[in-house]
């Protein structure tokens, strides 16, 4: 049903694919809000969640999506596995697949890990984040949340604020939003903006106030302290002063904007608690959308008719 056998990144999808995923997610959102939240579509499928990096939201969201589709689920985390004994990625996955697993959801710290795996193993691969490269399901759920809130993505102005340099969410969001006809701006300290980012067709701004005046939606990214091998800004306090979103800035804007955050939130750094929990925030809607969007991705990849599992 999708033009690709795996979901490795938004880069590999076309507009029709994203449209199908968002359409299908709409019906799954309806399903997960019913008294009985389960459908039997993947009852003959086994999925492994392979997490080589920490995750709460994404792993739980994928696991719930798989269970809501009636798939059999096994979970794997690198810290408690033979990876710590030196086993390679391909060996680990092939051993799991020998137990008759059909789909692999993988998060890995290395960019391109999902792509690498897709060329070497015989299973559907879903990238749940590969280093600073892509996080396609996060971008899809962000697009879905915007579409539900604003009606469509076409012509909407979205600013992505914060650590663009280390963010896989930013790259996937840029691809996805541009594909669906939205205008995208990135905003952050110059040290955290990749030098050639404008070649992706996005606007670049270093003044948060100007960026917020321009946009319909602001997606506030987390400062990824774990990926910062050198100091990109003087202090978190200074970052919060220049790029943190608070209610004072929000009230000073000429129009109402929608606030998003992929989580986990550093409260008081990129966003204050009153904004994160305020009426313009759709952060918890994003989490709800996440399950529906991941159900849609799993369903559509499992349903590819031309290459049966």
């Amino acid at each position, binding site marked *: 049903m999708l033009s690709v056998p795996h979901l490795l990144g938004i880069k590999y999808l076309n507009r029709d694919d994203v449209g199908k995923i968002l*359409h299908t997610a709409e019906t799954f959102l309806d*399903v997960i809000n019913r008294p009985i939240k389960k*459908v*039997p*579509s993947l009852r003959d499928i086994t999925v492994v969640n392979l997490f080589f990096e920490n995750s709460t939201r994404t792993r739980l969201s994928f696991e719930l999506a798989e269970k809501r589709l009636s798939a059999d689920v096994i979970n794997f985390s690198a810290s408690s596995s033979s990876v710590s004994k030196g086993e390679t990625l391909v060996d680990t996955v092939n051993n799991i697949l020998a137990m008759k697993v059909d789909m692999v959801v993988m998060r890995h710290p290395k960019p391109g890990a999902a792509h690498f795996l897709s060329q070497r193993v015989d299973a559907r691969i879903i990238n749940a984040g590969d280093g600073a490269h892509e996080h396609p399901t996060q971008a899809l759920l962000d697009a879905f949340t915007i579409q539900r809130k604003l009606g469509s993505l076409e012509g909407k102005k979205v600013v992505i604020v914060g650590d663009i340099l280390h963010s896989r969410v930013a790259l996937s969001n840029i691809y996805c939003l541009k594909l669906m006809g939205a205008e995208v701006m990135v905003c952050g300290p110059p040290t955290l903006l990749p030098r050639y980012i404008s070649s992706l067709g996005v606007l670049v701004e270093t003044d948060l106030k100007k960026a917020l005046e321009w946009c319909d939606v602001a997606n506030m990214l987390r400062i990824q302290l774990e990926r910062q091998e050198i100091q990109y800004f003087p202090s978190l306090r200074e970052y919060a002063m220049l790029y943190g979103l608070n209610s004072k800035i929000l009230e000073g804007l000429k129009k109402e904007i929608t606030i998003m955050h992929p989580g986990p939130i550093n409260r008081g750094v990129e966003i204050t608690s009153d904004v994160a929990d305020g009426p313009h925030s759709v952060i918890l809607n994003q989490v709800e959308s996440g399950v529906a969007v991941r159900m849609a991705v799993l369903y559509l990849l499992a*349903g590819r*008719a031309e290459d049966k599992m």
Partner: protein
Amino acid sequence: MQPRIILSQEHYRIMQTRFCHQLIEKHDDFKSSVIIGLQPRGVNLACSIRKELEQLLGHEVKYGELDSTFFRDDFRQKPLLPQSTSIDFLLDDLRVILVDDVFFTGRSVRAALDALQQHGRPAEVELLVLIDRRLARHVPIQPDYTGITVDAIFSEKVKVVWNDTILSHVELVNKDQ
């Protein structure tokens, strides 16, 4: 082979009135009954029958639309995108009339019966179909109300043509055409 018209608009009008009277005979004032149109092609028929029923009864008839895509057993052979389901009430103890246009192998209705369970436990479920292709059943399910019965071979297809929400005609066409 030229398409052969097996049901004209005039005939359908008479048939729809017959459906409504049969339904009222069984379901009385429809206070505890509900019409559910099966997505995608049973919905127009269900809406049309509901409209006439409401005129005859003089009050609203409970109505919903059901999509059974996620409950189908063939989604991996035949890629299907889901449609919307809108049933804004619980089906507990209600008498449900499922409505579809063409009843063929019975697999869609089997899936619909499973999908229905997500919305409660109906007191009874009946099936109303416009066209019954009776020689093609894969599962032991039969309709309770039938428009016309057609003995078509597998290479033929029954095509229900709608003009917006008004039935234009039903024709029998060769699948290759």
